[in-house]
């Protein structure tokens, strides 16, 4: 009876053959461009946004408090709530800051657009491109990046046990320019507002979160959340007039 253990290296046994899949855009997958001339594509920004999802009020997860598109901006967190367009602006500022750093520290001088997008996405999420995976199973990918063994890098991303779904999607971008379905920001906003209504109703928000949710909902829809007091309604109208 064969027994195998999880391995932390990429070799012929676990290497994914990406030639079996459909390349969605040969140009962005194959055309090398100077790193200094590359910029994040709209597709990768949309990819990030739709994975994060906008939230108009602050929330805390794993000890980190964020607002909007997972912004840690203290002023925004302490503010009245963050409407989608303001959250987008904050996110892009953060994104571009990280992109500038990425360009300085990335070890190759040329990349294709899809390689650039995937590596940038990884870097923004993890602040490293040296390794991926959990503490128990790390894949060290820096040498593969330097050697342009992109199928090894993509396989490591796919096998990564940490934030696995996102890493697997980045692997598809890296090898196949497959960015998934574009999701309009208007739809992201609409669906997030639906969740906001549910969160507000089900008693799981603090008073501060509720106040931010009330503000954002009114600012985005010109409607009040149900069960708001008249004084709160008047205050909101005054704030936004």
């Amino acid at each position, binding site marked *: 009876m064969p027994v195998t253990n*999880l391995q932390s290296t990429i070799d012929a046994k676990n290497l994914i053959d990406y030639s079996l899949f459909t390349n969605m855009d040969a140009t962005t997958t194959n055309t090398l461009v100077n790193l200094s001339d590359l910029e994040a594509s709209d597709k990768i920004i949309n990819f990030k946004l739709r994975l994060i999802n906008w939230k108009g009020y602050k929330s805390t997860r794993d000890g980190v408090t964020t607002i909007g598109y997972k912004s840690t901006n203290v002023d925004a967190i302490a503010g009245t709530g963050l409407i989608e367009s303001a959250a987008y602006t904050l996110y892009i500022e953060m994104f571009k800051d990280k992109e500038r750093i990425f360009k300085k520290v990335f070890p190759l001088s040329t990349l294709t657009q899809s390689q650039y997008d995937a590596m940038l996405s990884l870097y923004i999420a993890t602040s490293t491109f040296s390794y991926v995976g959990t503490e*128990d199973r790390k894949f060290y990918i820096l040498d593969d990046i330097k050697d342009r063994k992109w199928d090894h890098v993509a396989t490591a991303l796919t096998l990564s046990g940490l934030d696995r779904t996102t890493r*697997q999607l980045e692997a598809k971008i890296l090898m196949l320019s497959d960015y998934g379905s574009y*999701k309009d920001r208007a739809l992201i906003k609409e669906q997030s507002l639906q969740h906001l209504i549910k969160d507000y109703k089900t*008693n799981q928000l603090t008073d501060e979160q509720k106040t931010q949710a009330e503000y954002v909902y009114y600012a985005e829809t010109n409607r009040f959340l149900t069960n708001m007091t008249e004084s709160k309604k008047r205050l909101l109208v005054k704030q936004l007039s």
Partner: protein
Amino acid sequence: MAGIIKSDGVRVSNRAKQGGTENINTLHGIYIAEVITNADSLYTGRITVRIADFGSKNTETICLLAVPFGGHTKISDSGKDVTLDSETTVSYGMWPQPPEVGTNVVVAFTSTVEQGIVIGSLIAKDRNAMMGGRSSGNVYANGEVSTGAAMEKNPHDNSDPDAKPLDTHLQSILNQQGLSLDYVRGHSQSSARRESPSKVFGITTRDGHVFTLDDGDETGASKNIRLRTKDGAQILLDDSKGFIFVTTQSGDAWIEMNNEGKVDIYSKGGVNVHTEGDYNVHAKGSINMQAEQGVNIKSTGGDGIKMETTVGGIDVYSALDIKMESAANYHLLVAGNQIIKGTRIDFNGSMAPDSATKPTVQNQTVNDNVLTSVASRVPEHHPWLGVNGVEEKPPVNKGRTA
């Protein structure tokens, strides 16, 4: 008895000699003891207890743990090849968590073995409200008493007779799941202190996992079987209201089947279905589908796509252009009149019609079988790389102990 214990490798060091008469344990009988230590270097669940009846000297003694049932196959039947599953023993049975330090336990001593045996725990007065099923109840919250997930009553609390501290962990989960006002799916009503004699049979772990079989209260409510983890993942089979409910910790995915025959499924992250055979949906009512982003349908088989109505018509409305394209011929056959009306109708005019946009395929790079699909996610037979929750720390447990 003593011989069996010894043959299992458990050190029963000495025959009892307290009475001075060789091999006779004059202290045999049942005693009440207090748990001093519940860690055991042998991993057999031995418990160190203090027995007041033994006097002030040498009052701490290590006792064996008795479980309601369990055992192992005969040691003498094991073979010489230590690598073969067929030549070793098999253990099975119920394995409990040891009683906490400070718990009163019942210890039995036989007439021939010095080592005592813990045969059960004693329930302390007013210390079993969380037993049975970690029931909710009156809790202190926001400066008042209201209904919520409850801890054990603080022994120093002499005010409200029933109010307990709020179980903030479970309450936050119920809030997240949207079940904070649901006294069936959310709050458990199964407590050892709900009625007497109790109708509740339950197992709860120290940290908060729950398995309850509740015969219901006097009004017939809470007749259910509940299996819930500390963090809120749950399977509930409820006879009182007639449904089966399954939820994840976050409440972002749940399934409910009720006695009216309805099946409700909610998923925040997406529902992904893959069958190697047919996927059949037959409704005696209507089939209603709506997507807030788009609808993609693709057939890759020779049967193509067929639509038919046997009574009503087919209506297609598009807010924007309708584009139809065929790689072969276009046939339009009507039994009655063919009516076409437009601001301008071009037949082979100078303006070429736009091509139809095909559904976008998505690569399934975590798959071995289905490599592309219009579906964004296609689960496969395991091992499937697409699963998100993975544990990469290998399991460890002790073999031989010193």
